[in-house]
């Protein structure tokens, strides 16, 4: 009966086909090795980016030297770097709360804007307050403004199972045009010219080391989020909901409440970042449509590269800040296009995400097909 299976054809057909490499699962890597892998992948990105820069006729070594010195050569340069990092760091910390819950909040941009809008409103509504109280009121307003912008999406998701990715994304545009409306309408400072006036002196952040205090808020927040996610009951609930909603329900958790609360918090932090930005030097104390300037989207990359770890977020935001500040300096030095920065960021994202494969698997040489032949003959 099995006459179609005899004969040597089968083995001849298969013995030569063994590929030269085999993908083998690795044992869990220790932390030092993991970090080494990430460092290597950043270096790979720098090398590829360097080749690209060389193609543009610029010596890559000089370019990267300029990137570095553009950030660290002087106090002014370094302060410029910090001003870029702070909003990115805060918004990234905000989105990891949502991402841990597998809630795809890509609306940080709009949440930041709404935080800034509410803070500006508070500043205009209570003009006579002394600075410390004013700033607290504005911070609360910012958190509420951003928080509501996030809560809306969670409310509809819980009630009608709407898609939060689309919802949060679309609200970005709504927030953007609210600012556009305000600067052309009710809050217009000079007739005929779109723009909202600078905040009053009592609504501006005090300075430490000639930097406004937002960097202190950001660093405190790193520890706060770390502890919140790792050690609190609410953080635990986020982890369980993110793992499996049915398990969370089974454990007696009120999934809707957790989802709405977490989203309010996530978006509220983005809103706080907006408030700090609008009352800081970086925005010239002015609310405008460019207040978020893409931070909400960059934060998504930062959060993932950092594997949703708050300390990782700190490191990655710093790296992204260096790239952005340093590259903008290097661009003008060498008369290169501004797109180069984005290409470099993309490359780093690509190599780090790609390195994940090598962290989990290794390639192993197989014995190859030739040896098998000998064995059979």
């Amino acid at each position, binding site marked *: 009966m099995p006459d179609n299976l*005899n004969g040597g054809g089968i083995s001849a057909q298969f013995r030569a086909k063994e590929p030269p490499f085999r993908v083998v699962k690795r044992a869990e890597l220790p932390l030092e090795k993991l970090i080494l892998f990430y460092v290597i992948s950043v270096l790979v990105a720098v090398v590829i980016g360097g080749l690209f820069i060389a193609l543009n006729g610029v010596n890559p070594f000089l370019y990267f030297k300029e990137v570095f010195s553009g950030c660290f050569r002087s106090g002014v340069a370094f302060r410029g770097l910090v001003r870029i990092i702070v909003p990115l760091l805060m918004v990234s910390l905000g989105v990891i709360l949502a991402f841990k819950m597998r809630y795809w909040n890509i609306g940080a941009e709009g949440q930041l804007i709404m935080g800034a809008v509410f803070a500006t409103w508070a500043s205009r509504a209570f003009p006579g307050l002394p600075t410390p109280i004013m700033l607290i009121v504005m911070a609360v307003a910012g958190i509420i403004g951003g928080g509501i912008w996030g809560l809306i999406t969670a409310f509809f998701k819980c009630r009608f199972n709407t898609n939060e990715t689309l919802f949060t994304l679309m609200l970005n545009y709504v927030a953007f045009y609210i600012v556009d409306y305000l600067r052309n309408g009710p809050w217009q400072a000079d007739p005929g010219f779109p723009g909202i006036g600078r905040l009053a002196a009592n609504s501006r952040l005090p300075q430490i080391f000639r930097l406004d205090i937002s960097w202190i808020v950001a660093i405190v927040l790193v520890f706060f989020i770390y502890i919140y996610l790792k050690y609190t009951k609410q953080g635990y609930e986020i982890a369980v909901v993110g*793992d499996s909603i049915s398990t969370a329900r*089974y454990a007696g958790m009120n999934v809707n409440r957790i989802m709405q609360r977490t989203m309010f918090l996530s978006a509220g932090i983005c809103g706080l970042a907006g408030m700090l930005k609008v009352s800081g030097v970086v925005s010239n104390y002015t609310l405008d449509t460019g207040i978020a300037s893409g931070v909400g989207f960059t934060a998504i990359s930062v959060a993932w590269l950092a594997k949703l770890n708050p300390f990782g977020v700190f490191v990655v935001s710093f790296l992204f800040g260096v790239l952005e500040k340093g590259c903008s300096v290097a661009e003008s030095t060498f008369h290169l296009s501004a797109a180069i920065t984005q290409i470099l960021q993309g490359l780093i994202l690509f190599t780090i995400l790609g390195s994940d494969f090598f962290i989990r698997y290794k390639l192993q040489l197989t014995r190859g097909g030739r040896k098998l032949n000998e064995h059979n003959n």
Partner: protein
Amino acid sequence: MTETVNAKGSVPDVAIELKGITKKFGTVVANNNIDLSVRRGEILALLGENGSGKTTLMNMLSGIYRPDSGSVFIDGKRVVINSPEDAKKLGIGMIHQHFKLVEVLTAADNIVMGAEERGVFLTRKRFEKTREICKKYGLNVDMEKYVYNMSVSEKQSLEIAKVLYYGAKILILDEPTAVLTPQETKHLFEILRSMRDQGCAIIIITHKLNEVLEISDRVTILRKGESVATVETRNTNANELTELMVGRKVSLAIERPKVKVGANLLHVHHLTIENSDGIEVIKNVSFDLNEGEILGVAGIAGSGQKELCEAIAGLHPIKKGAILYKDENIERRTPRELINLGISMSFIPEDRLGMGLAASLDITDNMMLKNYARGKSPFVDRKTAGETAKRIVKSLDIVTPSINTPVRRLSGGNVQKVLLGREIDASPKVLITAYPVRGLDINSSYTIYNLLNTQKQNGAGVLFIGEDLDVMLELCDRIMVLCHGRVSGIVKASEVTKEQLGLMMTRLSESEVEKNAG
């Protein structure tokens, strides 16, 4: 090649032979130097505890994994199987535990889908061609029926027809009887015998010793990744097989300790439940659960067991009727209130993880899943949870690198022990457990049975939703049989036979049921 006994001319007698197969995952050795052979026209049973490497070994034969070392011979010729495609070409067909079928296609389409037929259009001919295969091996599948309309047993027959259509001469079945009724199992075995008689080589993986003894010609036993013995089925018995598998003598009798039945715990009163599609899956079901008893629930998979469990745990709305816990209606209670009342539910779904555990969290974090919210502190108490984790890992022999290992990295059996361990550790008043030994090996299963008996002796009421009727007959005090969502009888386990239960599960007539129930 060694023993190429040419019984039929040039065709060697041994269809498939494995020599010195080793496979490692990271630092874990799943298979270590395994030898195995199957002759043409033979059914080989592969026996072993959870994590002994059965599935890994078979996955290498079907091209899903590749061995680190060792060789595979088919018809005496050495081959390298790099992909499922290679396995298919070599005539190896695997029937997985979880069916790999497209629900919205007909039976015939599921078969021809992977057969790389010529031509652009699907023609009527595919129905005839696929029917021929079924006829040849006595498979009973309607080729024009859609898969979503099929019963589990039909789907399984279709899976078999599929691999036979591709020309499989070596068939591997991974726990094929886990989801079948006794009658369906009987039918499956007839098909397997007919295939064997036509010259196929069959490897069957199962935990059920009685089935091994009934269907197989030879048995190969794996223990901790090594092949410890191969025996002729007719020369062995259940006790010897268990001893080979576990490595020491194990008593196979399940105890049913006599406990004085206490007060009523749970009274389910004319309960009707709809599933998420709005179809009534539990219809007018009434039963009582008392302190100190194990009430078994038997029924074909998907007879509303899941919804029943969830309704009692407060996770699924009730359409009609009521559930009383100690004479109090619990319909409006939240799941957390029910947990605090002492109602515990552990449902082991097919994928073993779905509900009850958070797969990416570690064992410690999973221990506090149900009681993390206790106390006023805003912080979780990981210290107590860690102690619970250590205690359970030790008492249930859970194989894990540490209590900080994510649950998803554990093997299926160990995942289950984590879940059940946690539920039992909370010493609930009502313990609902569905499929607690699903896919577990003998040793672990007996550990679970003992734990359930301990709960019963401590005065808890246990609702045991099971699939192995032999076990239920020995373990349970009473058995409620569900059929199409209705109760077809509640019987004393000591006064009923397996065949009667099987009939009640598929229900003949009302009178029959009453006779059985009486």
